[in-house]
């Protein structure tokens, strides 16, 4: 008898359902179990690896007669719990394991743990010292006895050589005299003014007697800067006075006081000594340098108004910014305003005189200051007076159309004579420079037709021959600044200069030099090009000798 069609379908359905019901749970459990197992293993493994990876203990044990000294140094970057220090010993002829510590000690990164054990009272000698950490790891200490150390110790007479390297900080400089005495400060610090034979690729530097040459060396496009007046120990105030740029730093002698360099294309009206004074009235531009300024306003040092996207409706500056360009181009292409009130130790005023005489000294352009509140001074050099421009218009053009481009006809070249580097004893010199750079060329390198060095670092020998140097050109420097909104990023550079050995070139004494300059005036073919001015702040200059 054939089964009916409905019955056979039912039997097939039951069989299929049975197969599925039997296989599903096992499949599910197989997948689930495998996943859980793998997760547990992976997590635990990672935890264990992570705990052990960064532990680095250096353990030294010294047996000095009957005293065991154990020194543990955590060389790693994380805390380590020392759970025990054990010593394999012989005590009275019996082998034993000494327990030197009982309770756990936590060693911070870089910290050292000392342990002194009196072996005489236990009558034990030590064959090995083992440090157990909580990871757990076991470190076998390097074991020395005092006899070994005495054999290794140097004989008296100091036959050990000099250290592998020594670092000398040339800048920031110590300020023993008044910070406005630039020549005095740099001279006291060990710098001697020099004259390079070329401002772009110097091969010789001639040392100059004194700093008299700083009275000249800077040229301008349409005139020169002259000193108009100096004020000493006066009250100083400004009430919403129109200016273009402010450079603000700490006074290197007293971090509670400040130094300022204020520029404007036109006069600046200030209250000095209780009187209203219009500085540089009738002149095209003004630079005012203020030293030892102590603000009398609780709200801050200076109130700046200008570009609302930067200063809102006005912002009290409470401390100097490390970005020295932070207060330049206060109101973008227009003048901003400053308000301040306090007392200044010294105020220097420089006015720009339009005429055929084009040479100025360096004084209007230099400011010894710092931005970190230390008691040393970096060197700020700026030729920026008015505003930025582009490749199709003139930079630093005053509102009345006077071109205020400046450039270094003779660079500021300084040789550090207090450190003589002997190629007999020194194998290489590493010069480190930290600096800030800012320019007023809105199109950066597209506004310059030639690439010229702004900073040069190098070594010069006693006869003035340049051994080697590293130059920092405009196109390199301008990559790391923003003209507007102004930003002079912190930059650093290292220049490693191997010294030629005395056996091959003879004995030479070498000195570090630095050249700072504004190498651009303008392009005579197209005065909108190469017309940039700039700011350089040398924050630090250090030398590392490999001896």
């Amino acid at each position: 008898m054939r089964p009916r069609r409905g019955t056979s379908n039912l039997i097939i359905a039951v069989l299929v359902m049975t197969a599925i019901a039997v296989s599903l749970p096992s499949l599910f459990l197989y997948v689930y179990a495998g996943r859980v197992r793998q997760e547990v293993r992976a997590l635990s493994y990672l935890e264990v690896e992570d705990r052990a990876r960064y532990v680095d203990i250096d353990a030294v044990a010294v047996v000095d007669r009957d005293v065991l000294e154990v020194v543990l140094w955590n060389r790693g970057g994380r805390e380590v719990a020392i759970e025990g220090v054990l010593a394999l010993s012989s005590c009275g002829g019996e082998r034993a394991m000494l327990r030197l510590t009982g309770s756990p000690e936590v060693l911070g990164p870089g910290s050292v743990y000392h342990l002194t054990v009196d072996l005489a009272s236990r009558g034990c000698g030590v064959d090995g010292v083992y440090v157990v950490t909580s990871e757990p790891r076991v470190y076998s200490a390097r074991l020395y006895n005092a006899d070994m150390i005495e054999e290794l110790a140097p004989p008296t007479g100091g036959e050990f050589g000099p250290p592998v390297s020594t670092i000398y900080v040339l800048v920031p400089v110590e300020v023993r005299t008044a910070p406005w005495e630039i020549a005095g400060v740099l001279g006291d610090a060990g710098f001697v003014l020099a004259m390079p034979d070329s401002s772009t690729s110097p091969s010789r530097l001639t040392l100059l007697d004194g700093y008299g040459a700083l009275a000249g060396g800077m040229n301008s496009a349409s005139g020169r800067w002259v000193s108009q007046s100096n004020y000493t120990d006066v009250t100083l105030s400004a009430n919403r006075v129109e200016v273009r740029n402010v450079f603000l730093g700490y006074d290197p002698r007293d971090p509670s006081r400040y130094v300022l360099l204020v520029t404007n294309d036109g006069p600046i009206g200030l209250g000095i000594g209780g009187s209203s004074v219009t500085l540089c009235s009738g002149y095209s531009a003004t630079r005012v340098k203020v030293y030892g300024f102590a603000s009398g306003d609780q709200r801050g040092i200076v109130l700046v108004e200008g570009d609302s996207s930067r200063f809102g409706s006005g912002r009290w500056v409470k401390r100097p910014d490390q970005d020295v360009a932070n207060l330049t181009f206060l109101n973008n292409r227009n003048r901003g305003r400053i308000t301040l009130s306090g007392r200044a130790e010294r105020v220097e005023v420089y006015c720009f005189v339009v005429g055929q005489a084009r040479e100025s000294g360096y004084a209007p352009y230099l400011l010894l200051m710092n931005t970190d509140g230390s008691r040393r001074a970096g060197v700020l050099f700026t030729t920026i007076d008015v505003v930025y421009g582009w490749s199709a218009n003139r930079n630093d053009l005053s509102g009345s159309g006077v071109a205020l481009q400046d450039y270094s006809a003779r660079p500021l070249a300084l040789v550090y004579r207090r450190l003589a580097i002997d190629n007999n004893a020194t194998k290489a010199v590493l010069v480190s420079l930290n600096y800030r750079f800012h320019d007023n060329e809105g199109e950066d390198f597209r506004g310059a037709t030639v690439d010229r060095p702004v900073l040069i670092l190098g070594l010069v020998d006693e006869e003035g021959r340049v051994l080697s140097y590293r130059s920092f050109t405009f196109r390199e420097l301008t990559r790391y600044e923003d003209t507007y909104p102004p930003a002079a990023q912190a930059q650093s550079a290292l220049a490693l200069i191997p010294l030629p050995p005395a056996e091959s070139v003879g004995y030479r004494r070498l000195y570090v030099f630095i050249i700072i300059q504004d190498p651009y005036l303008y392009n005579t073919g197209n005065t909108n090009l190469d017309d940039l001015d700039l700011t350089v702040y040398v924050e630090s200059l250090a030398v590392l000798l490999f001896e």
Partner: protein
Amino acid sequence: MFLASAALVVGMAILAYFVSFSSVHSQQVDLANLVSYESAVQVVRLVAYDSRSGTAWLLLRRLDETPRNFVLLIEVDGEFLECESVYVFDELRDTNGLVCDGADGDCVVACSFYSGRVSSRDVFVWTRDGPMPLYDYLRRQAPELVSPLRIPHPSPAAGYRTRNVVVGVRLSELEASGLRVYLGVDYGGTIHVARIYEVNLS
């Protein structure tokens, strides 16, 4: 009627199978997870090997701080040690700073915790292919009986300041080149070896 009865029987059979399968398999999952977990949290370190006295000093540690006792087997050059050869340092009894010197009772022989023997066919070693009897794992070298060591975890509640267990292993063979520590876990009265440490003594 016949068909309804048959469907009921089949349904009951499937349900019974499912319940039974789930129960057995969940135990297997639990065990697999436990073994996997234990393999990662139990650690053995060699502190020192005193070749003059033939003593290897080992450190046992649970990374998860769970107060679960250690279950282990120690093999030296193919022979499994008896509990008489293993001493456990008890820091609470130590009064003279000497580990296991016998003067102050700070050294407890492992037999005082457990001294039984089990068949090596009833101890399972977990390999990549799953659990395998120790007897099969060791193949021709396998002894019929082995002595598992059960060592208590140092409980902070009892006053132990470190969570490490220091164990002294007395080796009868002074020329031993190394020892193997089989770290296991007890599951339902059966020992499952989760990890094997090779300790080089040479």
